[in-house]
């Protein structure tokens, strides 16, 4: 563990959507709040994806999202904003040898965290969605009150705990082209998130008055950096 400088460069995530006046007038439900909720959720997912899979140097020459591939992202892909946890991880990784995720591998990952793995309450295990069932079978983990305790709290998205370590299953831990997935065990203090501008939505019917449209703009300025790359260990090649 050493002291150093961490640079937090804020990046703006933004979405703009124009909707016709008729859409709002003819909708059974008030449509603008629905769109706002969708935007907030999309931002949350984008953040999660970027924090985990971000790569500022990834090939990204696809001109639209539809033509993007795993190897070549959309040129405005959100993941280009920051280097994510999987990219910066430098703790000794664990290779599952193209087998299913086991407790031994999680244990090895904790061991590889070295000093960062000492306090289990600071750790977080992130797994792909397909590993959620594997872990449930291994441990029967769930969030029953008797397991969390009366004062226990669960993180958002937490599916249970392994040796006191919260487990989060997410779709952004993607399956590679060879059918393998990754898991990640990290000390939560490894990453820093800075909010310059929290999620903000603005709407105006004056900008596009000529076409009688309502413009909804959502934006956020945030920074993300990993200060201790050794505090992040990946478990690779899980099949």
């Amino acid at each position, binding site marked *: 563990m050493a002291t150093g400088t961490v640079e937090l460069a804020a990046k703006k995530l933004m979405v703009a959507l124009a909707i016709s006046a008729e859409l709002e007038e003819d909708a059974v439900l008030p449509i603008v709040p629905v769109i706002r909720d969708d935007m907030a959720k999309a931002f949350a997912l984008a953040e999660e994806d970027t924090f985990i899979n971000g790569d500022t140097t990834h090939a990204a020459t696809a001109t639209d999202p539809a033509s993007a591939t795993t190897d070549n992202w959309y040129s405005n892909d959100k993941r280009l904003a920051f280097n994510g946890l999987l990219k910066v991880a430098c703790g*000794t990784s*664990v*290779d599952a*040898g193209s*087998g299913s995720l*086991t407790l*031994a*591998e999680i244990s090895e*990952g904790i061991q*590889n965290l070295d000093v960062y793995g000492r306090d289990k309450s600071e750790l977080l295990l992130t797994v792909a969605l397909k590993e959620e069932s594997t872990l449930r079978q291994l441990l029967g983990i769930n969030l029953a009150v008797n397991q969390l305790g009366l004062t226990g709290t669960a993180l958002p998205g937490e599916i249970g705990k392994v040796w006191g370590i919260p487990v989060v299953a997410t779709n952004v831990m993607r399956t590679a082209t060879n059918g393998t997935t990754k898991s990640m065990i990290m000390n939560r203090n490894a990453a820093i998130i800075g909010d310059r501008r929290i999620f903000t939505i603005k709407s105006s019917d004056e900008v596009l008055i000529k076409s009688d449209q309502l413009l909804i703009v959502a934006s956020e300025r945030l920074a993300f950096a990993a200060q201790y790359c050794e505090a992040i260990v990946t478990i690779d090649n899980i099949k």
Partner: protein
Amino acid sequence: MIMTIIPLFNLSLSWKPASKTFRLKKNVEIDLPDDAIEYLSNVYPGKFIVKTIDLMSILEEQDNTELLVKQNVYEDNSLFSLLDEYEEKQSIDVKKVIEDALNKNIIKKEGIWYFFENEKICNSIKKLKSIMEQDSELLSKVNSLI
């Protein structure tokens, strides 16, 4: 042929066929099962230096070692002979012992008779020399008194 690898980065390999976790350390040679090496070479191309060892060459090397050991044993035997020669060279000069013993009155001469510790040994210097050459105990005893 035996294969070992030198990893260029740290890795914990959970190798299920062997039910074992191999801890690979950067630049430290490790012996792994062949299938594990094949797997690592495919998954992490260029991240390992694979070393192959020819068993036959090892065996030949062992034969050479045995030959060398035999040679050494032979040389050791020759050393023994050299040691014998050295000891021979270092052996007591009987003539000199008699001269010194007479000078220091360890062996006394009375008339033609030679005495050692008041005991008559013989009556001529030639006989004394031959007795001393044959009786090593007497020789060493006289020599020690000198």
